[in-house]
């Protein structure tokens, strides 16, 4: 192969100027994630019970969004029915408690059953293309909720109403809060591992170009099923914790264990924060759930429409998510050395131009 000719040497120097920043990104993301979770972890110390309740929900949604990120963000396959795993987790725990079996058995069984369900469901459903996969998963979640309701699983019309368990220690709200927090931390670590692992590379390759991935030796189908199962695990454990905590819920309808708006929330939060990033889901979950909780208390009437408007604005103007927006802002254009303030200025210009450009 011929050596680079003279006019190529200039290119070479310029390209070398690009610092290999990419490989350090995960350290920043992981570190920042831990810091954020740690700060949130201080909430119970304030003694404010209503804030504690709100933030428990927020952290729960962090877990849900992080779980969805595996199949929707990394693998690029938008599943719209992940609430099914949440519901499975909730009902597994409920059924275990109703039968007076060991307290924590439900929590152990929940991810196992949900994972199995994800595997069996994934086998036929992941053969479907984009749109169909999305709605098939949506429909399965809806159908599951309906089945539980009509077959009176766990109670009439599927309504769960558990008695507080008689245990040796007191079950405070803080306990559940920290339960979700630890779960979120574990999922954060899992996500970070994924970005560095061979499995993660396969998923990203599948997301970017499935045909090319296959031609390179990736058994795309099985990796997709794997991602789907992976997304079910933290979601189911969160569902189980939800059951332990609330002790009373319905299968369908608002706030139900199979409520479709939970599925949508997962997607939107990950989306807003940045699908396929480590921090994205956490960021998105905090922003949206905080807004949601705040407006549902103070502005009940406009709560629904407000969420709708928010979704519209995000999808039109911020489809790549906040994290990627930040990355784009501080990125140095190919081959040019720039200081950070200069980069940000140019980045802002670039990003604004992109946001305002018409699609057609």
């Amino acid at each position, binding site marked *: 192969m011929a050596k680079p000719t003279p006019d190529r040497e200039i290119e070479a120097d310029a390209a070398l100027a690009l610092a290999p920043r990419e490989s350090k990104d995960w350290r920043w993301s992981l570190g920042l994630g831990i810091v954020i979770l740690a700060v949130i972890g201080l909430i119970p110390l304030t003694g404010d019970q209503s804030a504690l309740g709100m933030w428990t929900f927020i952290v729960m949604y962090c877990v849900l969004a992080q779980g969805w990120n595996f199949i*929707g963000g990394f693998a690029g396959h*938008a599943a719209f029915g992940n609430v099914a795993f949440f519901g499975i987790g909730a009902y597994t725990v409920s059924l275990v408690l109703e039968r007076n079996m060991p307290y924590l058995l439900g929590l152990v069984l929940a991810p196992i059953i949900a994972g199995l369900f994800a595997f069996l469901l994934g086998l*036929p*459903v992941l*053969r*479907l*293309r*984009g*749109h*169909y996969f*999305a*709605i*098939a998963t*949506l*429909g*399965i979640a*809806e*159908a*599951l909720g*309906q*089945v539980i*309701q*009509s077959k009176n699983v766990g109670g009439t019309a599927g309504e769960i109403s558990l008695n507080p368990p008689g245990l040796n220690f007191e079950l405070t709200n803080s306990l559940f809060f920290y339960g979700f927090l630890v779960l979120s931390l574990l999922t954060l670590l899992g996500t970070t591992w994924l970005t560095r692992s061979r499995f993660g590379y396969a998923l990203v390759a599948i997301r970017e170009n499935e045909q090319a991935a296959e031609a390179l030796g990736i058994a795309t189908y099985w990796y997709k099923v794997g991602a789907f199962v992976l997304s079910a695990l933290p979601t189911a454990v969160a569902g189980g914790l939800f059951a332990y905590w609330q002790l009373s819920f319905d299968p369908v309808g608002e706030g139900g264990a199979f409520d*479709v708006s939970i599925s*949508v929330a997962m*997607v*939107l939060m990950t*989306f807003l924060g940045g699908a396929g990033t480590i921090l994205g889901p956490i960021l998105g979950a905090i922003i949206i759930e905080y807004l949601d909780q705040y407006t549902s208390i103070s502005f009940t*009437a*406009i*709560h*629904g*429409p407000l*969420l*709708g*408007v*928010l*979704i*519209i604005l*995000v*999808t*039109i103007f911020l*489809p790549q998510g906040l994290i990627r927006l930040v990355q784009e802002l501080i990125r140095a254009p190919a081959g040019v050395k720039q200081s950070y303030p200069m980069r940000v200025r140019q980045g802002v210009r670039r990003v604004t131009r992109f946001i305002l450009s*018409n*699609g*057609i």
Partner: protein
Amino acid sequence: MAQDIVNWILLGCFYAAIGLGFSLVWGLMNILNLAQGSLVILGAYVAYWSYTVLHLNPFVGILVAMGVLFCIGYAIQYVMINRVIRAPFLVTFMLTFGLDLLISNVLQDVFTAGYKAINTPYSSAGFEVLGARIPLLNLAVGAIAVALTAALSLFLSRTRIGNAILAVGMDRDAARLMGISVANSYALTFGIGAALAGAAGAMLAMTLQFSPIFSGQFTLFAFVIVALGGLGTPWGALAGGLLFAFAEVFGPLVPGVGFGLDTAIAFVVLVLVLILRPYGVLGKPFYS
């Protein structure tokens, strides 16, 4: 049994109306309009209002609903969806979901969640054939639905505008080179889809009750109907409607199933059909 068959066919035709607009938008623009259900309910409200406030004949109300919804749909597409049309499908998916949330919640805030219906003196009129009762209104609605399907089919294949819309659906950039305004065509397509949803809503108001709570269900139904019947032709909506209605009417009669499982049945049927015939029963890869 005869009554079941009558119910099946009439319901199937009505379902076709629900799926028509959805099929058009999906087939030509590759957009899953998650706001379909909300648009249907909106159409129902428009028809209801035109009957109770303007005292117009409910059948005229169908036209009014179509007109209003067309304008709304055109605006939605032109202002919002056109901006994201080149983005990955998840983006448009979420956008239409946001729209759905917005519309159905606004409707709920303004009109409350109470059930409403257009009640006319002839609402319960009907006649008997072979032991089965055929309600007049349902029959009229079914006939209108089939007429709409035929009209859409003719519009797309015989008129200049229809051809232009098809062209844009097949190859956006090539159509642009032919001098067709893509933004306008897309807006027209969505507008027509919304108008059809409005018609379905008006028909809904005449024959059943409606409330903003149902919007999500109708969107899901529209999807199943179109996915079953197949994209590529308006008649797919009719085929899908009949198939779906069949599952709904005869499904609960299967021992062990019982009632209250509509969605579950629908999706099991859907997944099975999609696995066997990925393009749906009448589906073709391209709309024509």
